C-alpha cells in the first residue's frame, strides 16, 4: 500500500512517522495522522470518489475545505452511519470506513451514467416540466427509477447510539475563524479585556498563513509570528479557543450557533457533536474567502481542482494531486500554486492566464523559475480517460474558433478569483454590495445586521471583507476589531502588526470559457457540480423568462445542493447577468441562510431524545394503573388509562365491562388530569361572568355549576364545572388538555384588558388528585367509608368538605356519566391512598375501575358533549343545543358580540343531533359525512357501540339537524359504502336525568 502521490517531504500537518490504515469502498489504504480523508485518498492516487446527482458523471475532489461539492461520503455503518460528509473535513483516523455515494452498482461501472447519454432529456426546469403530467407517471414510472439511481447518501437504518449535547455560552466578542484576521482580532479583543470565544472549523489555527507563508509579520517569518500569537492567546484567561468548531449561524440579536465536531475521530468520544448556543455582544466574522472555479467544457472530470486546494494539498499534507498539472488562472494567486508544485518537484505543464499581459512579482517569479506562461489563453476543453483527466485543449480568447493546443495532464488547478465568506453578515439581514473593481460581493457597511440597540452586531474582518493580501488583511482586521470594541466601550492596547506582503493585481474573471473550434458553447460547462447545473441551463432559464435570480435558482436548482452554491453561485449569477445584459449589481444575489455547512440532526436534538424528548405527566395513581393493566391514552401531556385489560382480552371486552359496571353497580375513575384553577378576589364573580357564557356571580357558595367558555369569535373553547368555595373564591374545572391554556387565557384578560379587576388566579391542577365514584351503588360505597360527611344529604350539584378515611377531601356531587356520582378532590399526596381505599370498597360491591373510553361511551349515551369531539373551533353553544347555558341577562361576556353575527344565528347551521343506524350492530366511522343530493350536510362527531343500549349510537353535527328528528340520512364512508341512519335526540339514555339526581 504505497502512496504514489505523497511527496518526499513537506506537509506541515502530517506526522510521517505514523501510518494509519483506512478503508474506502472496502479497499484498504494508508495515510498519516493529520491527513484528511481527501488528502489521504489523493496521496493514494484515488481520483474518482463520487458520481454526480443527475448525470452520474464521474467526480473527484475539487477543494480542500467546507466548500467541497463532490466528495461526499457515507461514514461508518449501522448505529454510527452518517451520510453526505465532506471528505475534505474528515480527519483521518485508524479504521475509518467510508463508502462512496450515488453509484450503482459501484463507482467505476455505474449504470446511471446512461443519464448522461440521455442528458438532452434533462434540461433546466426538467423537474418542473416533466413530472407535472401525466400525474400517474410520477408514481409508477419516474419516481421508482429516479429513487434507485439518484439521491445522495443513504439514510441510517439504525438508531444513533452516539451522545450529543447542547451547551450555552456568553461572551463579548465571538470570533468566527482562526486565520490571520481572526487571530489579530482575538489579540485585540483579549487585550482590551473582552470575554472572547474563538471558533475555528478546522483542527488548526492559522488559516492560509500555513500555506502562503511568503509574508513577513512584525519583521518575523509568518510562521514564527503565528506560533507566538497562538501561544499568547492560549495563555489568556479571557479567551476560549474551540477547534473543529464552525460558527454555523448568527441569528437575531447575535444568538449564534457553533457546531463542534468534538468526537468524530474514531476514538470512543463522550460527546460526538456539541451545539454551542452563544449570546455575544459582537461577532467578528474572520471567515476568509472561497476560490471560484472556471466554467469550461467538461470542467468536472476528476483531476480538475481549485488552485488553492492543489496548493493546500502540497503544502499542508505533502500530496501532489497530479504528476503533471496545468494551471488555469485569471489572477496572480494561481501562480503561487504553480510555484508550489514546481518547488515540490512536480511538472507544471503550463500556466494559462486569461489576462493579456500578466505581470507582478508572482508572475515574474514563475517566469524566473522557467515555467511556461500562456497569456490570453484558457482551457477550452478537458478530456477524461477511464474516469480521470487525461488531457486538455487550450483556447485563445481572441480566436476561440481556432483549434487549440492539446496538453496531456492529470491535474488542472483553476483560479477565478475569490468570493468573501459573508454568510454570518447576511444571516440576520446584513446586505452585500457588488464591488466591480474587486469582482466580489463585500459586506455593505451601511447596512449591517443590527442588534437590539440598533448598533451593528457583526463585523467582517480580513479576507472575508475582500482584502486580498496579508498586509491588507492584518490592517483591516486590527481596525475593525477596535471599532467593534469601542462600541462596547473597550479599548485595546494591542498594536496592529506590521506586514510586508507580496503585491497582487486583481482578477479578470472568466465566467465561461469558449470551446475551441466551436462558435457556440459546445459541451457541458458545469457551474454547480453537486446539482449538475451547467452554463447552458442558467442561460436557458434566463431565456425562458426566469430573470430574477431567485427564480432562476429554483428553476435550475443552482446553489440548492448541500453545499448551498459555495462554488457556483457567483459564476451562475454572472452567467444570468450576461444572458440578460445586466450587471452583477443588477442581477443581485440570493440570501445566505444558516447553517453555513450542514450540521447533524444529532447535534440539533442534543440530549432531548427518548424519554427526555417530551416529559410525560403522571397522576399520583399512575403506577397503580400500570400495575392493573392500564392501556394508556395520551391526553395533552398526560397519560390516562384508556381501559384496564384483564389477561389478553380485547379492547371491547374491557370497555363494555367497565361501562356496565358504572350503570349497574359502581365504578371509580382517576379524574386527576382535569384542570383546576382557583379564581379569587373581590372581583372574581364579575370576572367569571365575563369568562363564561352563563352566569357565575349568582352561584351560591358550596354549589357547583357547569360552565361553557367561548373565545371572542363566539365559538366554544372549553367547559367544566365551576365550584364556588366561598364569596370570593371559585374553583374552575377545565378539560384535561385545557388547564394551561385556560389559565393563560384568564391571566391574559386580567393583565391586559381588565387590569383594574381585583382577582388572582392560580393553576392548582397538579396540587390535587381527583377521583370520580359513579353508579347506583355509589351511596352504598360512600356509606361504608370512615367519613364525617353525610353524603346522602349533599344535593345534586352540591359540595361538602371533610375527611374520608383520614384524607382531607372536597366532595362534589357532579356527574359526567349520568349516574349518581361524586368527585373527590384530595391533596395529591393523599391521592393514591384514597384511590386504593375506594377501589377496595368498589370491588367489595362488585364494582371497580373504569377508564377514559368507558367514560366517553357513558357520556355519549347521555348526549354530553366533549370539547374537541363535538366542537372543532367553529361550533357555538347554540349549535350543540346548550342555549340554556348562554346567559341572556348578562350585558357582556367573551364571545357575546360574536354570537350576534348573522352567520352564527342562521337556522341552517350544523346542529348537534343523535344518529341511530338502521342496523343496530353497525357502528358509524368517526368523522364520516352525511351526504344529501351529492353534498355533505354534516359529520359524525362521536360514535360507539353502547353496551347499555346494546346497539350503536352516534352524535353528529348536521345542517339544521334539530328540525329533522326522525328523518333518515345517508352516511358515506371511506370505503364507498353508504350507511342509513335516523336523526334523533342526542340523549340516548335516561332522558329525564333521574339517575344522577336521586
Amino acid at each position, binding site marked *: 500500500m504505497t502512496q504514489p502521490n505523497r511527496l518526499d517531504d513537506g506537509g506541515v500537518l502530517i506526522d510521517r512517522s505514523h501510518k494509519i490504515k483506512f478503508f474506502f469502498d472496502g479497499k484498504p489504504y494508508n495515510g498519516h495522522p493529520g491527513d484528511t480523508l481527501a488528502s489521504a485518498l489523493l496521496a493514494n492516487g484515488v481520483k474518482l470518489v463520487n458520481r454526480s446527482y443527475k448525470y452520474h458523471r464521474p467526480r473527484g475532489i475539487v477543494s480542500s475545505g467546507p466548500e467541497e461539492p463532490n466528495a461526499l461520503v457515507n461514514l461508518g455503518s449501522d448505529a454510527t452511519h452518517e451520510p453526505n460528509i465532506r471528505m475534505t473535513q474528515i480527519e483521518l483516523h485508524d479504521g475509518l470506513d467510508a463508502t462512496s455515494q450515488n453509484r450503482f452498482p459501484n463507482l467505476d461501472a455505474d449504470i446511471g451514467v446512461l443519464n448522461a447519454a440521455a442528458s438532452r432529456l434533462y434540461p433546466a426546469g426538467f423537474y418542473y416540466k416533466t413530472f407535472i403530467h401525466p400525474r400517474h407517471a410520477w408514481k409508477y414510472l419516474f419516481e421508482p427509477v429516479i429513487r434507485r439511481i439518484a439521491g445522495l447518501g443513504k439514510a441510517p437504518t439504525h438508531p444513533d447510539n452516539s451522545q450529543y449535547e447542547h451547551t450555552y455560552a456568553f461572551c463579548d466578542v465571538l470570533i468566527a475563524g482562526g486565520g490571520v484576521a481572526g487571530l489579530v482580532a482575538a489579540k485585540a479583543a483579549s487585550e482590551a479585556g473582552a470575554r472572547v470565544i474563538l471558533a475555528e472549523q478546522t483542527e488548526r489555527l492559522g488559516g492560509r498563513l500555513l500555506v502562503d507563508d511568503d509574508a513577513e509579520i512584525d519583521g518575523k517569518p509568518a510562521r514564527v509570528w503565528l506560533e507566538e500569537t497562538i501561544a499568547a492567546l492560549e495563555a489568556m484567561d479571557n479567551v476560549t479557543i474551540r477547534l473543529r468548531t464552525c460558527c454555523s449561524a448568527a*441569528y*437575531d*440579536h*447575535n*444568538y449564534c450557533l457553533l457546531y463542534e465536531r468534538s468526537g468524530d475521530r474514531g476514538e470512543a468520544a463522550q460527546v460526538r457533536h456539541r451545539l454551542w448556543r452563544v*449570546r455575544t455582544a459582537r461577532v467578528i466574522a474572520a471567515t476568509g474567502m472561497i476560490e471560484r472555479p472556471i466554467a469550461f467544457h467538461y470542467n468536472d472530470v476528476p483531476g480538475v481542482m481549485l488552485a488553492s486546494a492543489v496548493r493546500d494539498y502540497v503544502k499542508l499534507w505533502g500530496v501532489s494531486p497530479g504528476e503533471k498539472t496545468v494551471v488555469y488562472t485569471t489572477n496572480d494567486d494561481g501562480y503561487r500554486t504553480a510555484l508550489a508544485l514546481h518547488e515540490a518537484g512536480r511538472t507544471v505543464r503550463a500556466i494559462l492566464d486569461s489576462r493579456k499581459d500578466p505581470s507582478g512579482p508572482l508572475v515574474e517569479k514563475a517566469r524566473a523559475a522557467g515555467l511556461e506562461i500562456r497569456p490570453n489563453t484558457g482551457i477550452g476543453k478537458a478530456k477524461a480517460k477511464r474516469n480521470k483527466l487525461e488531457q486538455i485543449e487550450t483556447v485563445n480568447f481572441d480566436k476561440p474558433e481556432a483549434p487549440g493546443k492539446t496538453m496531456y495532464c492529470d491535474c488542472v488547478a483553476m483560479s477565478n478569483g475569490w468570493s468573501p465568506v459573508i454568510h454570518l453578515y447576511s444571516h*440576520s*439581514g446584513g446586505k452585500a454590495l457588488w464591488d466591480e473593481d474587486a469582482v466580489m460581493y463585500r459586506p455593505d457597511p451601511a447596512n449591517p445586521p*443590527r*442588534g*437590539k*440597540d*440598533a448598533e451593528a452586531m457583526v463585523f467582517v474582518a480580513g479576507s472575508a471583507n475582500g482584502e486580498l493580501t496579508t498586509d491588507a488583511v492584518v490592517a483591516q482586521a486590527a481596525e475593525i476589531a477596535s471599532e467593534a470594541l469601542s462600541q462596547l466601550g473597550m479599548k485595546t492596547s494591542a498594536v496592529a502588526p506590521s506586514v510586508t506582503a507580496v503585491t497582487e493585481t486583481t482578477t479578470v474573471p472568466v465566467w465561461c470559457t469558449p470551446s475551441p473550434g466551436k462558435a457556440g458553447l459546445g459541451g457541458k460547462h458545469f457551474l454547480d457540480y453537486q446539482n449538475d447545473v451547467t452554463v447552458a441551463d442558467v442561460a436557458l432559464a434566463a431565456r425562458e423568462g426566469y430573470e430574477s435570480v431567485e427564480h432562476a435558482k429554483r428553476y435550475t436548482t443552482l446553489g440548492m445542493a448541500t453545499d448551498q452554491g459555495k462554488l457556483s453561485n457567483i459564476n451562475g449569477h454572472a452567467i444570468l447577468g450576461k444572458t440578460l445584459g445586466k450587471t452583477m449589481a443588477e442581477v443581485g444575489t440570493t440570501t445566505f441562510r444558516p447553517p453555513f455547512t450542514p450540521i447533524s440532526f444529532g447535534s440539533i436534538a442534543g440530549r432531548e431524545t427518548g424519554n427526555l424528548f417530551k416529559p410525560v405527566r403522571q397522576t399520583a395513581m399512575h403506577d397503580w394503573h400500570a400495575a392493573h393493566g392500564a392501556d394508556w391514552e395520551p391526553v395533552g401531556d398526560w397519560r390516562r388509562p384508556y381501559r384496564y385489560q384483564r389477561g389478553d382480552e380485547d379492547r371491547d371486552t374491557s370497555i363494555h365491562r367497565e361501562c356496565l359496571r358504572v350503570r349497574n353497580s359502581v365504578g371509580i375513575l382517576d379524574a386527576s388530569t382535569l384542570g383546576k384553577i382557583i379564581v379569587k378576589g373581590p372581583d372574581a364573580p364579575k370576572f367569571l361572568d365575563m369568562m363564561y357564557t352563563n352566569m357565575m356571580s349568582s352561584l351560591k357558595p358550596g354549589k357547583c355549576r357547569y360552565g361553557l367558555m367561548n373565545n*371572542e*369569535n363566539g365559538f366554544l373553547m372549553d367547559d367544566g364545572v365551576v365550584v364556588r368555595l366561598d364569596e370570593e373564591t371559585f374553583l374552575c374545572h377545565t378539560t384535561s388538555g385545557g388547564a394551561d391554556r385556560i389559565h*393563560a387565557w384568564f*391571566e*391574559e384578560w386580567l*393583565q*391586559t*384588558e381588565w*387590569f383594574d379587576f381585583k382577582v388572582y388566579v392560580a393553576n392548582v391542577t397538579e396540587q390535587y388528585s381527583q377521583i370520580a365514584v359513579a353508579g347506583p351503588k355509589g351511596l352504598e360505597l360512600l356509606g361504608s367509608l370512615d367519613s364525617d360527611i353525610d353524603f346522602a344529604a349533599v344535593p345534586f350539584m352540591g359540595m361538602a368538605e371533610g375527611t374520608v378515611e383520614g384524607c382531607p377531601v372536597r366532595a362534589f356531587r357532579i356527574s359526567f356519566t349520568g349516574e349518581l356520582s361524586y368527585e373527590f378532590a384530595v391533596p395529591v399526596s393523599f391521592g393514591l391512598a384514597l384511590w386504593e381505599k375506594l377501589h377496595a370498597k368498589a370491588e367489595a360491591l362488585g364494582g371497580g375501575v373504569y377508564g377514559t373510553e368507558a367514560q366517553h361511551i357513558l357520556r355519549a349515551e347521555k348526549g354530553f358533549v366533549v370539547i374537541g369531539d363535538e366542537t372543532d373551533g367553529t361550533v357555538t353553544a347554540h349549535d350543540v343545543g346548550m342555549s340554556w347555558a348562554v346567559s341572556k341577562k348578562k*350585558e*357582556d361576556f367573551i364571545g*357575546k*358580540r*360574536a354570537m*350576534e*353575527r348573522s352567520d352564527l344565528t342562521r337556522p341552517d347551521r350544523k346542529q348537534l343531533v343523535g344518529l341511530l343506524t338502521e342496523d343496530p350492530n353497525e357502528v358509524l366511522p368517526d368523522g364520516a359525512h352525511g351526504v344529501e343530493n351529492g353534498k355533505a350536510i354534516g359529520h359524525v362527531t362521536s360514535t360507539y357501540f353502547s353496551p347499555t343500549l346494546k346497539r350503536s349510537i352516534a352524535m353528529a353535527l348536521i345542517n339544521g339537524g334539530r328540525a329533522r328528528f326522525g328523518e333518515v340520512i345517508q352516511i358515506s364512508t371511506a370505503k364507498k359504502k353508504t350507511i342509513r341512519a335516523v336523526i334523533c335526540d342526542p340523549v340516548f339514555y335516561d332522558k329525564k336525568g333521574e339517575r344522577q339526581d336521586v
Partner: protein
Amino acid sequence: MLLIDCPCCGVSGEETEFAAGGEAHIVRAGPGSSDADFASYLFDRKNPRGVHFERWRHAFGCGKWFHMVRSTQTLEVFGVYKADVTSPPQDILDRVEAARAEGRVK
C-alpha cells in the same frame, strides 16, 4: 432569536422564554359595537416592515404580559413597558421618531 427585557421582573432572556401575543393596543369591541368595528377588533392587524407595537408574555418566567416596540426590519428594540396602559410611553415614541429621522426604520 430575540433577546428580550421583561419590564415586570427585570430579566433579560431568550425569546424562547417569552410568547408573542400580536399587535398591542387593540381596543376591544363588545356588545353594541358596529359590525365594522367588531370585525376590525377581531381580524385587522398591522404587519409592518418597520416599527411594530406588540404584546409579549414572559410565559416561562414571571408570567406577566407587557408591550415591546421593535422594528420588524432591523430587529432594533425601542423599548418595553407594562401591559396596564392604553398607549406607549412618550420616551419610547421619541426613540422611534429619532430612528425614523435617521432613516433607520420606516
